[in-house]
């Protein structure tokens, strides 16, 4: 078998046509897989500590609230919508909609951060009381950090959008920032299930 490929042909074939996912995309997905494995290890630790104890949360600590975190989660999930729309807009060359979509995403993200800050303020305990409070605070902080990172990416992408760095055929930066935003949403869902629904599981110890 012999293989003949022409560099000039490859260049021409690419110009003008919407780009397929480049190798950097695979790299980012693999990086996210490693970050997801860190989260997986933390969730594993949460449940290991939970089944290790006889009471969860331990005596003297109120069970976590459900309503306020669920509302925060709803806003977080909703923030994925303008992210999707922003990506579609630039794929069609609509610069203004891209900027608007990114801005709305950021506002929703800030709202979630505000609700989380309120949640931290009303916890009624700190990280250093016992293993439950430690794992609760550290896992929550993991999500806050993911969201802040996603916001930094978002702001950098907005600046680039206003400078006109993106075109219909060339907007890798938008896709990458969106991928990181989706990660902030997905990890938020996982951590809500762990921290707020997890304690509802009967750990089978009755005294």
């Amino acid at each position, binding site marked *: *078998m*012999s*293989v*003949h*490929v*022409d*560099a000039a042909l*490859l*260049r021409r074939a*690419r*110009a003008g046509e919407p780009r*397929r996912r*480049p*190798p*950097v995309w*695979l*790299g980012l997905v*693999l*990086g996210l*897989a*490693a*970050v997801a*494995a*860190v989260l*997986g*290890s*933390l969730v*594993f*630790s949460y449940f*290991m*500590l939970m089944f*290790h*104890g006889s009471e969860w949360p*331990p005596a003297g600590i109120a069970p976590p609230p459900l309503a306020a975190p669920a509302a925060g989660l709803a806003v977080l999930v909703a923030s994925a919508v303008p992210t999707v729309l922003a990506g579609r807009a630039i794929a069609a060359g609509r610069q203004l909609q891209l900027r608007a979509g990114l801005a709305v995403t950021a506002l929703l993200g800030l709202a979630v951060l505000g609700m989380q800050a309120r949640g931290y303020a009303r916890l009624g305990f700190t*990280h*250093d*009381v*016992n*293993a*439950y*409070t*430690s*794992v609760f*605070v*550290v896992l929550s902080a993991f999500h806050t950090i993911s969201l802040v990172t996603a916001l*930094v990416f978002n702001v*950098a992408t907005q600046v680039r959008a206003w*400078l*006109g*760095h*993106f*075109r219909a*055929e*060339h*907007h*890798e*930066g938008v896709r990458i920032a969106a991928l990181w935003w989706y990660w902030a949403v997905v990890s938020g869902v996982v951590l809500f299930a762990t921290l707020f629904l997890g304690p509802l599981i009967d750990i089978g110890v009755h005294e």
Partner: protein
Amino acid sequence: MTTTEDARPDAARARLVEAWSTKPGFINWLSNVNHKAIGFRFIITSFIFLLIGGVQALLMRTQLMGPDLDVLGPDAYNEAFTLHGTTMMFLFAVPMLEGLGMYLVPLMIGTRDLPFPRLNAFGYWLYLFAGIFLYWSLFTGSVPDGGWFNYPPLAGPEFRPDSSIDFWLLGVTMTEVVGIVGALELVVCIARHRAPGMTLSRIPVFAWGVLVSSVMILFAFPPLVAGSLMLELDRKIGTHFYNPAAGGDPILWQHLFWIFGHPEVYIMLIPAVALIASMLPAVTRRGIVAYPLVVVSLVAIGFISFGLWVHHMFAAGLPALAMAFFTAASMAIAIPSGVQIFSLIATMWRGKLVWNTVLLYVVGFVLVFVLGGITGVMVASVAFDWQVHDTFFVVAHFHYVLIGGVVLPILGALHYWFPKLTGRLLDERLGKIAFWLIFGGMNLTFFPQHILGFLGMPRRVYTFQSGLGWDFYNLLSTLGAYATAAGFLVYSANMAINWSRGRPAGDNPWDAPTLEWATASPPPAYNFAAIPTVDSLYPLWEPKEASPHGQAGLLDDVEGQRREIVGSTILDAEAIEILELPGNTLWPLVAASAIVLFLFGVMIDSMIVGAVGLATVVGSLLGWLWTGPEWRHE
């Protein structure tokens, strides 16, 4: 095979040099991101750490040469075995194998660089800083002494309140991050940048090994990152993850550590075995027997190795069902490992052996690794494990596995690829002397330790009393260690002497079949004058086409001073795009330095230093990622 090295128009060659090379000067040296420069630095740095770890081993063996000696004393002995294990695992084995991967894989698969050169450079700087960070503890007097496994509560805030364990946790976490970033770009390189025509069944075995171990790294290193984070928080801000008095669980650390730690063994072993299989064709003059089975068993080992971790915890009091499962899995992994070994033996059996130093290392690997594997099957049984747990039998077992399965392949590989890296051949006579000293020395060191284990000598004791029947075997073991050290001296001297004075190697001194030998030694910055096309697993052994010089390869010229590489499809390696790589930059160095500054702030409990470090990390990442308009080349 259509490299057109000699018939290139000089003007196009000059443009390739201009686009790809790094100009002399210190700042340019710091900003170099080429995969060969970075791979080379990984190899050299990790070799130095190998020698440092070896000195610690010698100190320990000297202390144990006879009963009641006082060379090290108990505290220094604990520090020595902690630093020895930590250095060999985190600062030598994984960085060395990734360094070899970074240097060799792009050459073997016919591309010009790794897909994320700046990330690669970042990995090197962080690795170098991690090593310095860990060893800085020697100057503070608080040296890590919790073992390479660093179990709490011994390593927790209650029993180790000084900063020794913090050096360990933060230093090791940096090396984990280095491993992860290196792994993800090696995966992308092998998946998306193979030369046109290099389908899955034509990927060199070493690239397969690097691919499998890199995917494993992506899932095995994060548990230790998470575990170390929690232990550091326990130590620094008073959380209670591992504190049983407040509902924490020290066994949690053991799980997280070994979910990392057992795959880690195979993360080192798989690329090392693949190194052996890649050198074998050149010294047996034939292709490897059962290549598809070798590849499938590499992948199988990768999967099974995630189901073994609990066999490190057989004595921790776990449910019987878990013990049965992990015993079965520990024995099952012997099957794909056996496939590898039988393939190597069959290849040697059917081939025409060339008895050079490289072949000695191959044979040495098979002998030593099989012995380590057999004792591995023995300790996989819970009943047997309880008898020898924490004795020198286990020390003997894993040194046979790691020296046989990792160190000998690496030494053989450095001998084999030294001509490619430097353009000079090593001396064969010195090479053979070094091999026999190391091979004989390590057997003399570790074989008696099996017997010491049966005689009941525990691990991690700094001395022992006379009259227990241990004196003679300990003396033998120590003499073996000195012989091994002499071998390493000869090996290093061989490299130092022949670095610039060795016989010129030429492009392909071993008449080897894979692409890295198709270019000059050392290779030019752009690797290949044109991207080759591949139609065989052993392209250089295919009959040469009538007139290779007439054909134009891909990217045989540069456009607008850009560093360009070919992107190809994952399965069929069909060229589908041309991608631009970033050039040299200092951002990776700045980012790595900023991370160290942040961790330094954590170490000295300074909010200000930590905050400045963190802000610099964010700023340098933004500077790094900032590009102009994405459509600028239209």
